[in-house]
């Protein structure tokens, strides 16, 4: 068994390292990479042991980017009823976008109001938090957002 295990490890190491490191990309190209969007923020909460009001996470902005994404009406209609509107529109303002109403709109606007659909789409999928952090509203614990990926892993004593 021991021998097999060693072989296995060597195998995985070679898989991870046998490719040459890719060259550094220009800044312009880097911008195309996608970052944390408000859809993700709307779904996350702090799940530290003992915390009861871990939602919504407070956003600290270091860098926001906007990327054009093709609009998908079916997806927007599908996801709309699942959005916590207050948290969503508040978060969009923190990222510097002030076009969303504070009160949750009637679902019927999705069918009739193309203008609203565009705004909803923009805030949900085109605003990206590239660098920053999310903070637990109860304990103030910081969850860093690096390269658009929120790190929600807890420390040993928070589990």
């Amino acid at each position, binding site marked *: 068994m021991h021998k097999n295990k060693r072989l296995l490890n060597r195998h995985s190491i070679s898989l991870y390292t046998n490719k040459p490191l890719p060259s550094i990309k220009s800044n312009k190209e880097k911008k195309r990479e996608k970052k944390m969007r408000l859809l993700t923020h709307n779904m996350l909460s702090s799940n530290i042991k003992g915390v009861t009001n871990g939602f919504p996470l407070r956003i600290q902005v270091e860098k926001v980017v906007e990327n054009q994404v093709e609009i998908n009406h079916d997806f927007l209609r599908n996801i709309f009823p699942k959005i916590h509107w207050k948290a969503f529109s508040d978060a969009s303002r923190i990222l510097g976008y002030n076009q969303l109403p504070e009160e949750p709109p009637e679902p019927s606007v999705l069918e009739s109001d193309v203008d609203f659909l565009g705004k909803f789409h923009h805030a949900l999928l085109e605003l990206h938090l590239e660098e920053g952090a999310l903070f637990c509203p109860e304990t103030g614990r910081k969850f860093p957002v690096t390269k658009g*990926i929120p790190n929600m*892993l807890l420390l*040993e*004593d928070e589990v």
Partner: protein
Amino acid sequence: MWYLCVFYHRLLDFRKPEFESLAHLFGAFGDNRSSHDSVLQWRLPKDHHPNSPFHFVHLPSEELARKLANRSILVKGIYELWGEGNDYEELEEAVKSYPDERKLPYLGSETTFKITVDSFGKVLSLQQQNQRIEGLSFIPFKGRVNLKNPDHNFWLMETDAHETNNGLPPVVQRRIFFGREVGGADRKFIPMYQLKTRNYLGPTSMDAEMAFLMANQAQAAPGKLVYDPFVGTGSILVSAAHFGAMTMGADIDIRVVLDGRGPDCNVWSNFKQYGLPMPVGLLRADNNLPPWRPGLKEVFDAIICDPPYGVRAGGRKSGGRKLLKGIIGPYTVPDDKRADHIPSTAAYTLVECVHDLLDLAARMLVMNGRLVFFYPVLREDGSAENHFPEHPCFKLVATSEQMLSSRYSRVLLTMVKTSLYTEELALAAKIKHLEFKENHLKWLEDGTLHSSVFSPSDAESGDSKVSRESKPKYRGKYV
């Protein structure tokens, strides 16, 4: 109407489940999405074994048959059968007696056509193929031949009886089929996605063909949101995105989701490589303690994943060894070290992992949403059917086994959410969660799959031979 469905002769266990999932997706059972009990009617050609590539299937419309065949990975073609027989006289007889109103619209002088001769289990030379095509001259073809882009494709398919093979009964008997093609699979995109051309790979990246099969089982489609809690290099989500679904993924390993192997070699670049829309979200999170907000439920249309079974890659969860073993009292991180502290993780047994997965899926899937995942089984067990995980919210609709070694297989399970996630279920899951946490060591000791798969074979080889013979037999290495 009955159609002749010809499958590729690979991944035999996956063929019908894929077909049925797609039939369901395209509305073969009406718009009623909760019709998971409905099944298609299947029929085999005379004396064919269920492993035969030839099947007859009843479908409500040709339109549906075409859509299904075009989307499928394992359907070679679906045909309107004009005739079949044990020899060419019988075939001629059958084609002649097939109603003219079904035949004549496809034989008109303003149409173009092509006849393809295909054989299963034997090779026909070009000369033999031409001979057989000339033998079809009793059919009144009025149109012109067009080999590149015909209006109508006709197929002549021939099989011979086979000897028994490796103790298995023959799959086909001699039979000749002639029919008009309704639709065929486009497998051209599979080589494009094959792993050897993929930018960013890990040791457990999912094979492209299998990933597409998983996405079909999950009925990935435009407008849907698909989640993979063990996203790794994103190989499963790539296939879901190919079929138009929005994707979201999480992984506990920050190296995988954050850095990959450089700025142009990470999960994002795998999507960019194929011009697919990026995942709507990637995060680092623990499947054992998912960070979803309270009250959030029924957001994902499908969850597709390949959980870590502890053979090629082991699962990890947060908590750390020290806390769980309880060797050094309650574990605390000093305040000055918190910012850069890298939390240690604990081993995550398959049992707990699957329990968490089912609980997460029960909560986060929409009604009639699908959970598709691989589950390993030791082949010695024999009666594997009885050991699949269960959950009161889910109905198991398909199981497809893929053999990985002589010791173990993995089975693709497809489950459909058929009841709502209730408060009681949430509470029961929470109790179970704590039970796992408190008995962490016991679960680890209960033998891992890794040791069963890699331990040397029994020295006392007397009974190992017996067990080898009692194992189910398989056809071919892909089966």
